[in-house]
């Protein structure tokens, strides 16, 4: 604890930064770890400068585009091109299409890609921005783009209610509300096929920035999209048939892969200097793997989760990140120059006994943090308070609902697109009690609305935080309070183990 306490001082004077400047700068910052060799940037990437809208034809990515792999470092997806001339508007094009990418050195794999890349480009926006995404589906199957965690109108949510047919287009348009700064992600959400399409490579990060971010702007920032996949001998992605042994195991556990990707790279090496503090944003984009994150010999200063920053930082040894969840934390270079440390996912027993993998109790390396040989840098001051999160009013609660989770079911029922499971009034405040009745973890995700976790198994949460996904471990209960503000519509709630969601572990909340 001590070294963090030394660092956490009252950080006076929140900075208002030039967002336009940052939008240009940040991709470059992400590309250049302190000790990494020079980056080579290929494909459709281009600096996010303002330019005239291009025709769809000229924006079409090459179907054989390749993910950018930098030796040793993180692969970085091509950036979005913002072609809006209007300040405060981000207008980009997004195409989902089959592609052949080199996911692992020496083999090419047929995937689905966003703008020719997997993961897709990172959408960087700021609070208040109007976001316009011209999406085209060049896949042979219908799809959607779900903006996981964003509080946006129902018809822009990319839920199974709004599929985009093969060859079809849809323009997603929404405005990012104040206070929404945080780390989010986007992925397909077609009924019954989410797991397959995400597994085929469709996922990307979203960063929403605040005008008054309390953390120092000088911190190097890294976006780590965690994903895993499984490959057949010929390099193709391995999706077993449902009736097979592997298919049954996947149906229970969700499909886990033996190759873990960090933003598209396998076991990358990231640089840091002794004394340096970095800001890491980690997204669990895996269909089923739950990550128990830890950095050898280091503690982490946990500063944020799904809906943005906490009220204050918490020093932790590890962070459990369920499917769809995000974590923001600070890594401080407390080790000596020239040393290295593994960033790992520790064993996590989320499984039922019937299908628990034999190697579940093995830690897995995610990346190597390599210290530069240069002399340590001076520590910088970090704020002890991040922001104030107003508590939702429990006295305004008009309904308390139980969501009983069992294998592939919510409240004993399987998903029916024609059924409304929960009806609520626009503006209503409710408490949802998510009870996991079975011996396997189920990460519960609510679309459209961020909620505040109240307690787990009756033990109050230590601080308020905005969440859109809460992992409910086996046989445990989590309670949250939520207010259905602003946007009527039919909102999905579901288990974010994608195989479970696809099997029907989902329901519909109608807000009207």
């Amino acid at each position: 604890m001590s070294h963090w306490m030394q660092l956490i001082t009252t950080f006076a004077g929140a900075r208002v930064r030039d967002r336009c400047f940052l939008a240009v700068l940040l991709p470059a910052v992400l590309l250049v770890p302190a000790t990494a060799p020079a980056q080579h940037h290929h494909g459709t990437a281009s600096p996010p400068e303002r330019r005239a809208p291009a025709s769809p034809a000229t924006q079409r990515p090459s179907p054989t585009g390749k993910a950018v792999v930098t030796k040793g470092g993180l692969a970085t997806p091509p950036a979005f091109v913002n072609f809006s001339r209007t300040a405060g508007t981000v207008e980009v094009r997004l195409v989902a299409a089959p592609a052949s990418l080199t996911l692992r050195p020496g083999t090419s794999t047929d995937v689905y890609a966003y703008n020719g890349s997997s993961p897709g480009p990172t959408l960087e926006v700021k609070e208040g921005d109007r976001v316009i995404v011209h999406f085209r589906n060049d896949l042979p199957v219908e799809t959607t783009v779900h903006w996981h965690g964003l509080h946006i109108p129902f018809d822009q949510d990319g839920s199974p209610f709004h599929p985009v047919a093969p060859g079809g287009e849809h323009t997603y348009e929404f405005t990012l509300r104040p206070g929404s700064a945080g780390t989010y992600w986007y992925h397909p959400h077609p009924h019954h096929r989410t797991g397959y399409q995400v597994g085929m490579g469709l996922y990307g990060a979203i960063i929403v920035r605040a005008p008054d971010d309390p953390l120092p702007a000088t911190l190097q920032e890294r976006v780590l999209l965690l994903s895993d996949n499984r490959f057949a001998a010929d390099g193709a992605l391995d999706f077993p048939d449902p009736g097979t042994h592997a298919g049954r195991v996947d149906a229970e556990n969700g499909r886990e892969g033996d190759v873990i990707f960090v933003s598209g790279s396998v076991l990358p090496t990231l640089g840091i200097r002794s004394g340096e503090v970095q800001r890491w944003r980690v997204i669990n984009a895996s269909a089923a793997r739950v990550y128990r994150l830890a950095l050898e010999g280091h503690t982490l200063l946990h500063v944020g989760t799904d809906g943005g920053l906490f009220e204050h930082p918490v020093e932790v040894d590890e962070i459990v990140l369920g499917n769809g969840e995000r974590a923001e934390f600070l890594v401080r270079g407390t080790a000596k120059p020239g040393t290295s440390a593994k960033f790992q996912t520790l064993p996590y027993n989320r499984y039922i006994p019937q299908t628990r993998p034999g190697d579940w109790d093995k830690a897995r390396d995610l990346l190597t943090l390599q210290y530069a040989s240069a002399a340590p840098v001076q520590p910088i001051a970090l704020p002890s308070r991040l922001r104030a999160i107003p508590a939702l009013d429990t006295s305004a609660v008009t309904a308390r609902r139980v969501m009983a989770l069992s294998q592939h079911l919510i409240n004993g029922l399987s998903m029916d697109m024609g059924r409304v499971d929960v009806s609520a009034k626009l503006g209503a405040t409710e408490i949802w009690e998510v009870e996991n009745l079975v011996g396997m973890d189920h990460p519960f995700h609510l679309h459209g609305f961020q909620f505040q976790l109240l307690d787990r198994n009756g033990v109050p949460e230590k601080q308020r935080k905005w969440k859109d996904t809460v992992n409910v471990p086996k046989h445990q209960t989590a309670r949250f309070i939520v207010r259905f503000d602003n946007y009527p519509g039919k909102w999905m709630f579901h288990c974010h183990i994608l195989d479970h969601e696809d099997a029907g572990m989902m329901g519909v909340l109608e807000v009207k």
Partner: protein
Amino acid sequence: MRSWSDALRNLTQFLPVVALAACMAPATTVTTGDPAQATQSGMNQVLRGRQLVIQHGCGDCHGGATNPAAQGDGPFPGNSQWLAGRPTDTLPVGGLVAFPRNLTADEETGIGRYSERQIFNALRYGLRPRATPDVEITSDVPGQGNHPAAPNYLSPAMPWLEFRHSSDEDLRAIAAYLKRAVRPFSKRIPDSGAPPDFWASEVSVAKVGSHISPAFPTSHEELHAPARRDQILHGRRLVIEYGCSGCHGGGDPGREGWLAGLRGQPPTVLAPYVIEFPIGPFKTRPRNLTPDNTTGMGRFSERQVFNALRFGLRPGETPDVEITSQIPGQGNHPANPKYLAPPMPWPAWRNMPDADLWAIATYLKHGLKPVVNRVEDSEGPPDFWASTYTAENFGPYPPPPFPTANERVP
């Protein structure tokens, strides 16, 4: 597959052993009816007896599973001769070994030489026919009401401690069916081992009570609306007769832990596996059947409980819908069904009438006080026993009509 065959053998071995642990009630002396009347019963009585033999799963140990047409000498009860005993199926009881006997009417190797009253006395009082006079018995207490002063009891795992709670009519019907309607089949079964007192010290009234259960409600029971009292009492009677508590805990409705699931109590000679059942390489742990919301059955509907008893489908993994087919993928039966782990005897209990199964579900949901007791999940194969629960292993549903080749019209 080999290991699962072994698992099944374990299943059929251990189930009755634990069932024997149930039923501990205050001593009461009662009078039963006249067993001689059973011999005068007609066809209806025999058919009733057949139904009871099937749904109690007598054939799970004695051969044939729930299939009166079963023949052969295979490793599963489902492919061995109907009720002719299973000399290969040794039941370890403490340091002793028990063999399921030949229940056919064969004079020499079966029960042909015993009267229906002796069979009734075996089911009601646990008294071995060959060592007990053919007289009417009117007391659970040795030395009283014709109960022998030095009784010679059936060996565990015979679950007579559960069956004894059945009505006189039902027990006589079972005796009538065995004696009159099962064809004699000659098959010699070795004697079961027993301690010098023939288990008398283990099944004393002080330990196991009498065959009269405590009145409803005990301190572990209560009547919740909207259930009706008659439904509750009907379900309760079945829960007691079918020995649910033999695995799920408590012994009788008056005892701590009634149906509250695995509690880690130390095993006894009569119930050596109450902690968990080794089923091949897996372990089965009896669940908490009380209506606690998170650790018991509280969040499951009566229909899900019914579906568990009729179709063997785990409530936590099966949608709360009406199921109309035994065949996976048809009539709402899940395409990839997840079945209750052995030794839960649902293949026998599915043969009970709808009204009985609904009554059991009603009692579990509305007749018990919730008890918080988290039971760790049972283990099993990834297909949740789907490839094990076959008609070949457990008999067809519904059973073949009477009479099969193994049966005769009285």
